[in-house]
């Protein structure tokens, strides 16, 4: 194997990991802090993608769309939390059912608004040659996006008042309550933040996928696998599982087939959960 092939395999694996991380991080927040299984996760991704598509359609810049997406989807998340989720804390099965209903409503609303088909956006940058291969610059930029997203999440949960209280409320809820942590408000902000990050992820991948109202279903399984395998630490755990699963999928896909890549991802996830039933990061000393 010549050196340019090795470089391309590595870069492709990194961008697959980035793809996985940006689509799963928002779920890591919502599931990690609130233990809510959000079946509308795919739809938050879709809304973020549609936001950036609409912004570009209005003639504005793609990067502005990236700023708008988390704001729009965060607002949607806050709305969903206030009207529905806050009645369902501790009631896991009902939360699954309710968020499933939200997902159906969002998909159908978007189909009514936009029709089943939308003019998407082409990737904004060009391609770069590496020996006999060329890869898209945007997929490399996606790696940068994933890094920025994780650093932002780390900063929010380690260095803001909200973040400290959110972690406390999630890890030791009774003590946090006695210390005066306003759990209702924290949960609202967490769901909104999770939705915002998910919307941002959806906007980031919009130039690489077909943007239609039903697109969410294609991402939800892998996002859940990444989050559950990652374990309790939202940033470091998700990063570890995203890297492990994403790289496995990408490399196996390259040397075998795409189907075996997906199978390998599943097998690795099963092995990881067998070895670490509460997730990879369950024994780790880190704080987020």
């Amino acid at each position, binding site marked *: 194997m010549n050196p340019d*092939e090795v470089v*391309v*395999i590595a870069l*492709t694996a990194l*961008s*697959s990991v980035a*793809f*996985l991380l940006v689509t799963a991080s928002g779920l890591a927040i919502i599931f990690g802090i609130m233990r809510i299984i959000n079946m509308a996760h795919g739809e938050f991704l879709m809304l973020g993608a549609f936001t950036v598509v609409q912004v570009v359609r209005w003639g504005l810049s793609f990067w502005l769309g990236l700023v708008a997406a988390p704001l729009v989807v965060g607002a949607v998340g806050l709305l969903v939390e206030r009207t529905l989720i806050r009645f369902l804390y501790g009631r896991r099965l009902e939360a699954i059912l309710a968020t499933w209903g939200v997902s159906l409503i969002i998909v*159908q609303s978007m*189909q*009514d608004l936009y*029709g*089943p*088909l*939308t*003019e*998407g*956006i*082409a*990737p904004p940058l*060009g*391609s770069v040659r590496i020996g*006999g*291969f*060329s*890869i*898209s*610059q*945007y*997929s490399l930029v996606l790696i940068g996006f994933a890094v920025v997203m994780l650093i932002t999440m780390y900063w929010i949960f380690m260095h803001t008042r909200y973040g400290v209280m959110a972690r406390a409320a999630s890890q030791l809820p009774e003590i946090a309550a006695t210390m005066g942590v306003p759990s209702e408000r924290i949960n609202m902000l967490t769901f909104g933040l999770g939705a915002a990050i998910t919307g941002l992820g959806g906007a980031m991948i919009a*130039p*690489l*996928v*077909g*943007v*239609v109202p*039903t*697109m969410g*279903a*294609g*991402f939800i*399984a892998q996002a859940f696998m990444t989050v559950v395998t990652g374990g309790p630490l939202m940033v470091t755990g998700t990063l570890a599982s995203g890297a492990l699963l994403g790289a496995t*999928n*990408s*490399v196996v*896909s*390259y040397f075998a*087939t*795409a*189907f075996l*890549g*997906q199978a390998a991802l599943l097998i690795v996830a099963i092995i990881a959960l067998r070895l670490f039933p509460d997730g990879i990061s369950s024994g780790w000393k880190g704080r987020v």
Partner: protein
Amino acid sequence: MKRSLQFFEEHRIGRRQLLQSVALGGAGLGASALLRGLPAVGAPTGTPIKIGTIHDLTGAFAVYNQATRDIVEIAVEEINARGGVLGRPVELLIRDSQSSIDKYAEFANELVLGEKVAMLEGGGSSASREVIRQVIGRNGGPVYFYPAQYEGGVCDKFVFCSGEVPTQQIGPALIPYAMEHFGGEFYTIAADYNFGHISSVWVKKFVEQQGGRVIATEFFPLDQTDFGSAISRIQAARPQVIFSLLVGNNHLGFHRQFAAAGLVDKIPIVSPVFGQAGELTSLSPQEYKGLVVAFDYFPQLDNPANKAFLDRVRARHGGRLPYAIGEFPYNIWLNIQLWAAATNKAASIEKDKVIDALESGLQLDAPEGRVRVDGKTHHLVHSIHIAQASEDRSFKIIKTIPDVQPSYEQSVCDIISRPRTHKQFTPE
């Protein structure tokens, strides 16, 4: 009570549908005013003949069915305007399978056993066709028409396939064109289910027959969204042309990511499927540039039958075409017209007589050109048009091959001499 609730469920009126109905009402008034100018045709009378159609009007495959509701309603309106079938009006029962396979089974059973329809039309993916075919087989009918281009080989007394098959699209059209213009080293990418697998066997057969080589064939699960590795693999293999059998919206990402890697100008793509799911709308011109397809129908076809066909669609939408009409909705329309013509020719709605009428080599002047039922195989002899995706989000027809026979089906299937056949042949 349950039936009337079902009626409302099937006929939910959304805002868009309401507007469409108003437009339709207006168009209907206009059309009936036009019809009064025609030589007197007796309005159909008597008990309506029920026919059923099942398609994915919502869900992930809705993108293939933008035109479907309009098309089936137009087909039935035309038939009723011509005096109906056997002098009786045709009543159309539309069912939305919601892109869910089990709904196909549910509605097929409901229409066949409950409504006792004289004809069933429907199915999109090959998986859905096989589900319907099983229901038809268990109940000994009614006659079933499948509209989509597919992997070929269905040989079933009760089933008629109006879609193109590999020995029409792939062998005589796409492969020779690709070999002549791009080269003989192929790389096949296919959706991972029966259609993708069987079609890719055909690609290999035809490529090798015509002196080329398929370097590799890769299958992608229908929910695959990240094609990074696949694109690297393709580059490592250095093909001269890519043969694409990708299906569904998730696979659209391949074209986005392929273009992002700067490969659209480097490796041409040919496909017997691309373009049916509104890809020319979702993708931007630089992402699909130069892609070559082959189908029996394009809206660009320049003949009076096609103009009249498109005008009827325009009449429902204030004079414009709100979506591209590809080969899939066209074949749906064709299905209903073929059934009506055959039933009138047979002078009976009885299944066996209708099938006999179709098998006698029924011909129609259709928007694609002249279409003929190949009696022994229950497939159609089609005109195949090769076209290239162009910047204005349409296909430009570059070559037309008339009277293309379904030759594989003819070599293995003779329903007239063996009427108890109910299977699908595959090339291995």
